[in-house]
């Protein structure tokens, strides 16, 4: 397990209390689980993703990630429609462990209200929450 100081938490993404990250890029938002989540879960063996075209509200469960230890649900940081899922994860779920912000992204969403991003935490606020 990583110490809090060892966690890789980029400055240019937003964080949720359930340890997802979200990054706006033009009119889509890319979403995944952060370094703390993948480290806690351990070796990831399966990522269950929604279908393209599904719509969710913020905080809805949109999928689950399964490691050798446990299964954990993932929750939407914002409301919107799924426009892409990371199909590479079907054969290479370990990408989430190896590079959760790049090749380990999970879904891309067309947000129904981009301003919902403002309610998410930045790195400092998220670290504050982790330290409790």
């Amino acid at each position, binding site marked *: 397990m990583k110490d809090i100081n060892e966690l890789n938490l980029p400055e240019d993404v937003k964080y949720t209390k359930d340890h997802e990250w979200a990054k706006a890029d033009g009119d889509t938002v890319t979403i995944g689980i952060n370094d703390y989540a993948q480290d806690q879960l351990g070796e990831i063996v*399966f990522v*269950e993703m929604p279908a393209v075209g599904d719509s969710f509200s913020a905080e809805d469960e949109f999928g689950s990630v*399964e*490691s050798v*230890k*446990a*299964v954990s*649900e993932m929750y939407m940081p914002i409301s919107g429609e799924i426009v892409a899922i990371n199909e590479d994860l079907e054969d290479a779920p370990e990408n989430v462990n190896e590079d959760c912000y790049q090749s380990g992204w999970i879904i891309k969403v067309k947000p129904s209200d981009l301003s919902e991003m403002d309610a998410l935490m930045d790195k400092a606020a998220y670290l504050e929450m982790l330290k409790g």
Partner: protein
Amino acid sequence: MRYLPHTQEDIQKMLAVAGAGSLDDLFKTIPDAVKVKDGLNLPEPMSEWELNDYMEKLASENIACKGYTCLIGAGSYDHYIPAIIPYLVSRSEFATAYTPYQPEVSQGTLQGIYEFQTMVTDLLGMDIATASHYDCGTALAECALIALRKNKKADKIAVSDLVHPSHREIIDTYLKPTGYEMVLIPHTKDGLTDMTALEAMDGIAGVAVQSPNFFGHIEDLAAVKKVADAKKILFITSFTEALAWGILKNPGSFGADLVAGEGQSLGIAKTFGGPGLGLLAGTSKLMRDLPGRLVGRAKDSNGDDGYVLTLSTREQHIRRERASSNICSNNGLNAMTAAMYLSTIGKIGIREIAQLNHDKAMYLKSALAGAGFEPVFDPPFFNEFVMKAPRDFNRKRIDLINRQCVFAGLDLAPYYPELTDHYLFCATEKVSKQQMDQLAKEVA
């Protein structure tokens, strides 16, 4: 499990290790209010031979299939159990009160279950099978839940009304607290599930059809598959007579997504209706949705084969509230029995036994038709069929049980009120031609 009584000395030693002064001391965390105050009020102890006599006397008050001609199936079948089975299955390595799943000490049991799963997938033509469930009814209810979980937009499951009545009740029990609903698909005048009625149903997550169905008829599973695919719903099929797959095309070859079945016919005694053996098999696509236990083959640190429980991250010992099923038990001893039975009779044996069942059932049907019974349905059947009886048959039937030791058919009226005077008959390999001829003579 060996019977090893404790001496006083043993008990004192164990108490000392546990840090308790006496047995009462050991149980002091149990509130006095719930403890039995005046002892257990048991009768006087008996010697071993007295106890044997007493138990035999009790047992002889039951009517069981032994010494009777059993012509009733309906979910529990009177098949021959090879002599090797009770001998093997009663060995203490298998018959233990503890469910031995720790890979470090239970390679034998785990491999046994793994072989069982492999045989179930072969028999049913499916990709993956679980380590077993209580019985077909619970396995089928679990399949209904899988369908509802997979198709979140639907809140109903379509179930043929020719699925075994008890199994429909179990599905109902499972769904009652959930807000989901079971809708029944009626049957046609031919005694088959009404496909037109199924096609007209909306908002369903899956369809469950039993084949051979409760009337014994072989359903058109290809037609069910077609409707399920058109509606993009799960195709579930169930069965109560596992030996049917000795001669019938298996569910996998019709593209079933999930199969739930009863394995009692595979070397397991009827024992008054239970414990049975719930079989559940699915496609690889549904691997992560299957409830209960799965045994997988892995490699140990030396690269040798080893067997472990696998894909158990979704189960309740990991996460109770969100487990895919809250029944993680399996009927381990019965699963082992079925594996022993299947490996005893083999591929050719199961075909021969299945053929015998079918041939004898055909003979019984024609013998009854010759004795004034009316064959009401015409579809192909395996070893069960429905006949409309002459008016005075019910009186004769009771008399046959008491006087001739024959169970002549199951009265269908309690399950299908429109079928008064209709009886469900079954013939297995154990019934002889003489017995069937004798019955026809008695009821004519």
